[in-house]
């Protein structure tokens, strides 16, 4: 009985400390998250993906 209580106490001590939930804001850039935008307007990469259909290097994402 005593041994079981000791094991229980030890398990409680090994538990990670409670961290309350929190809301964290992260920066999402839609013009980068969605492929196929024009780099000229959004100033985002990739720098030289295959834009040769339009004879330019302006597509990004």
């Amino acid at each position, binding site marked *: 009985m005593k041994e079981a209580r000791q094991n229980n106490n030890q398990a409680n001590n090994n538990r990670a400390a409670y961290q309350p939930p929190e809301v964290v804001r992260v920066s999402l*850039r839609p013009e980068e998250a969605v492929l196929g935008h024009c780099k000229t307007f959004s100033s985002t*990469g990739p720098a030289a993906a*295959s834009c040769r259909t339009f004879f330019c290097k302006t597509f990004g994402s």
Partner: protein
Amino acid sequence: MPQRRTKFATQAASEPTRFALRIGGFSLGLWCEQGMPVALDPEHIPFLAPSGADSPCDLEFDVSWASELRAPLSAPDFASGGLWSAHRDHCGTRFYFSSPAFGGGPYKAAWLDPSFSRGHVVLNRESFQSHDSLFPLEYPIDELVLMHRLALGEGVELHALGLVDQDSCGYLFLGHSGAGKSTTARLWMRQPGVRLLSDDRIILRHQAAGYRMYGTPWHGDAGISSPASAPLSAIFFLEQAPTHRIVPISQPQAAAELFARAFLPHYVKSGIEFTLQFLDQLTRSIPCSIFRFAPTDDAVEAIRHAHA
């Protein structure tokens, strides 16, 4: 001006052109309609599969001309606001690509089955009549198709620089545009024994041996794209600062920051769910930190010291 394309060796006009690429651990095979002036963009040449083009690939495409191409009248499931829109039904996903440069109608389309293993690319002949060569999987089809395939449970594409240090440690540096991925790439390029995979897009997959990062053809300002791959050892979120400092980040926040720098089909619920799970597991397995850095050579040593 962009670099010139490399045309395939002349083939008999009566035969279809066959070639295969290998990107992110996937093989992509193309059968192109006979007589089509198929060429590879310079970025894709290192990704040409050295052999096995005759074997079935993970993703197989038929490519053909259409004399007329029209988008469906129904509203798309997703309109990117850029070049492409997506229509989904039980048969799969149909992408339509249009640009003001070609008028209102689509200049090409790609129809994919639900497993993203078979597809049909259709090119509007009128749109390409002034082109002496074309790459059927031209951006953004190539990246779009792989992004959707990864979201079916196979990995994730990240806005990141990936590199392998001389001691074989694989580092991933994440950042939105302007965060310093290409700058960081240039710092590491000067180091002997360092291999860089891409300075803008990395595909990450989980395998029996752990997480593996793959270079892609889609590079940033430093122009780095490699078909190589390597195990992942550590993840850093880039922030520019006057001096170097490595700052711890909590596991949930690391997962959220990764999600904000991931390319995935945001309109596909199952894809979102898989990616969230994938990033949750990833951030529990791989150490993640914020790397505040100045663009000086000792930024490299700061990373090596932190990981030692």
